[in-house]
Structure formats: C-alpha cells, structure tokens
C-alpha cells in the first residue's frame, strides 16, 4: 500500500480525535471509588481457624457456594481430611471439596483431622505480584480481590498462588477466588463460611479492632500459617496445625 506523508498525518489526526473522544467518555462514565460509609483504613481482615474444632461437616463449603454462586466442581473454600501414618506419610482426601461432608474413614488407626482451606489473603501476595494488568490486588483493608472487568484470564495468578486458591471461572473466563465475602464484611456481617460454621472452628477477624478476639487468640495459642517459608504474610492463622499440612 502506498502511503505518503500527507495521508499519514491525516490518519494520525483522525486517531488523535478518536482517542480524545474515548478519553472524554471514560472520564464521564468511569466508576467512582467506594463510598465513605465503610472506612477501609479502619480494618485489616483475616481469619482464625481452630483445627481441633472442625468436624468436617462441609457447612462452610455449601455456604460459600450458595453465597457466591461458585460454579459446580470449583471451590473458594474446601475442607481436607488428613490421615497420617506413624511414619509421617499423609493421606489426604476432600471429596467434592467436602460439599457433602466426608465418607466414613477406611482406617481408624491413623492420626486424623480436618483442615479447612481458603484464600490466605496474604499481605505480600504472589498472585498480586504476577498479574500483568493490575486486575488482582490487596485492598486497603487487606482482602485479595479480582477486578473481573480487567482480568485477561491469563492464569498467571492461578499458577503463582502457593495454596491453590484460584481458578478460572468456566463461564466468565476470568479468575475467581475467595473475596472473604467482601460484600458482607463491608456491611457489618461475617463471611458466609463463618456464619454457618456450627462449631466456630473458623472466625473472621479484624486485626485493627483492638477488641477483636484475634489478639487473645494469637497471644494464648500456638498458631501457624500455611507454608510460612513462602513469606507471603498470610493472614489465615491455624491453631494446632500439624507439620504434615501443606
């Protein structure tokens, strides 16, 4: 195609006009930052999980699925059953994420317990670091969220998460994950999983609230986060976590 300088400038000029119209439209229709009723700076959310209280009923998994319309076969939270031999060899099962509880154990001679899992809402999150478009981020109140209008669906974050907490939504084709029920906790409710846990094995906590039970929990118990060597500054604390849990 032959193109002389005059044509080039004409095309350039047209592009400029189109771009400036686009910019103006974006400025007019762009979304506003969150409203002021809820002060993000006053909160720093996390969760505490007491392994010795979990009965593996799967109430949290069903509640999460109902609350967040999680697609079938995908999980934002799930429960694992660990059965550990004396040699330290673990056997882990989580049938359908424990959506319907657990079948009877095959052996009774093993050390066994349940471990509820979910996004650890890391303060130094690997998933956030790898996102090429700024579609996943840690909110000012400490919740790792996904901007589904900006997510490309490249799955870098799915690979980067050391805890396997992310998946590609089969219909939206964007990454989906636990939001710590951000739509609930910003309205003064607890998360769906914590609301429905019959034994209070999991509790939503706010580290910035001086009256929150988390401070006594951390002071009085032996706690651990999952994979501390990953240095992700995870904010889901487990009480009496066995060394075999990954």
């Amino acid at each position, binding site marked *: 195609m032959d193109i002389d300088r005059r044509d080039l400038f004409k095309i350039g000029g047209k592009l400029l006009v189109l771009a400036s119209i686009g910019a103006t439209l974006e400025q007019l229709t762009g979304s506003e930052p969150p409203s002021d009723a809820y002060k993000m700076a006053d909160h720093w959310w996390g969760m505490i999980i007491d392994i010795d209280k979990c*009965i593996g009923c799967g109430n949290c998994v069903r*509640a999460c699925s109902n609350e967040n319309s999680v697609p079938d076969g995908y999980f934002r939270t799930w429960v694992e059953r660990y059965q550990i031999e004396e040699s330290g060899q673990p056997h882990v099962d989580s049938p359908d994420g424990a959506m319907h509880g657990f079948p009877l154990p095959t052996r009774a001679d093993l050390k066994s317990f349940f471990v509820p899992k979910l996004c650890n809402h890391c303060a130094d999150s690997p998933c956030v670091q790898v996102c090429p478009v700024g579609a996943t981020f840690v909110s000012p109140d400490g919740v790792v969220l996904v901007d589904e209008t900006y997510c490309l669906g490249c799955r870098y974050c799915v690979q980067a998460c050391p805890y396997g907490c992310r998946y590609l939504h089969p219909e939206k084709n964007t990454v989906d994950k636990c939001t710590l029920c951000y*739509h609930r906790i910003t309205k003064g409710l607890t998360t769906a999983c914590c609301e429905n846990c019959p034994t209070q094995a999991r509790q939503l906590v706010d580290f910035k609230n001086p009256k929150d039970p988390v401070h006594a929990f951390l002071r009085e118990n032996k706690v651990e986060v999952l994979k501390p060597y990953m240095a992700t500054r995870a904010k889901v604390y487990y009480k009496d976590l066995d060394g075999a849990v990954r």
Partner: protein
Amino acid sequence: MFRDSGHLIRPALVFLAGLGMFLVIRAAVVPKHFGQYGHYRPGALDLVRQRPIAYAGQDTCVMCHDDVGKTRAAGKHAHVACEGCHGPLAKHADDPAALTPKLPDVATLCVRCHEKDAAKPKNFPQVVSAEHSGGALCNSCHQPHSPQL
C-alpha cells in the same frame, strides 16, 4: 539563530506531537482513579461489594423467630446458625412471602456433623448412625432446636 536550525526544530515538533499522542492515548486507556490505592482500579472494590447477600445472618432470623431462638440458645445447638441447616434465606428475610423455607432432610443433615469419624474432635458427640438408630430418623427422638433426649 544557528544555520540550518530547522534540522533541530522539526524533530522537536515530531517529538512533541508523539508525546502529546502518548498522553492522550494514556488518558483514554487508563481507567479513572487508577492508582488511587495501588496498582488497580478502585472501582473494582465497589463492583465486588455490589454482590447480593444470600445468608441473612443469625441476628436477622431471631428478630422474628425469637421463640425458636430462645429454645436453641438454651440447648446444645446454641451456636449453630439457623441458616446452617435451613439454607440461605436472605430473600425470605426481605419478604417472607417471596421464599418459603423448606424443612431440611433429616436423613442427611444430622449425620454430616454427628456420624463417627476419628478425624472429628474427641469431645464432639458422634454416633455410628446405622447402629445408633436402626434406621429411625434422628428427630423422632431428638429435638433439633434443643437436642436433648
């Protein structure tokens, strides 16, 4: 002026035009308020917050059903949330006529928590349901809202 200063002015104009184009395109493609809290679009926070609520929560349930709430608070199930067994009922809380709660299926509901499993805490009440009830439904003996014999 230098001799042949046009050689400098013309590239400078091209550079300025390029810079202007860069700024305009940047303004067009970068979302409003991007970077206000970090390297992301703050509007995404509102987007996530707009999700509808499915579980109304304990406090909402007992506003109307305070009789059941009191019975339950006195028994072993004091800390079991209503919707933990009855399912998500925020729609029912908004308008009781819009959604009528279904009775939970006792045959599967109780054993999810109370079937014996070595992985459960030792002090948690557990039974081998097949031996315990001989097929009878749990609520033929136990009151689910205050489970004493």
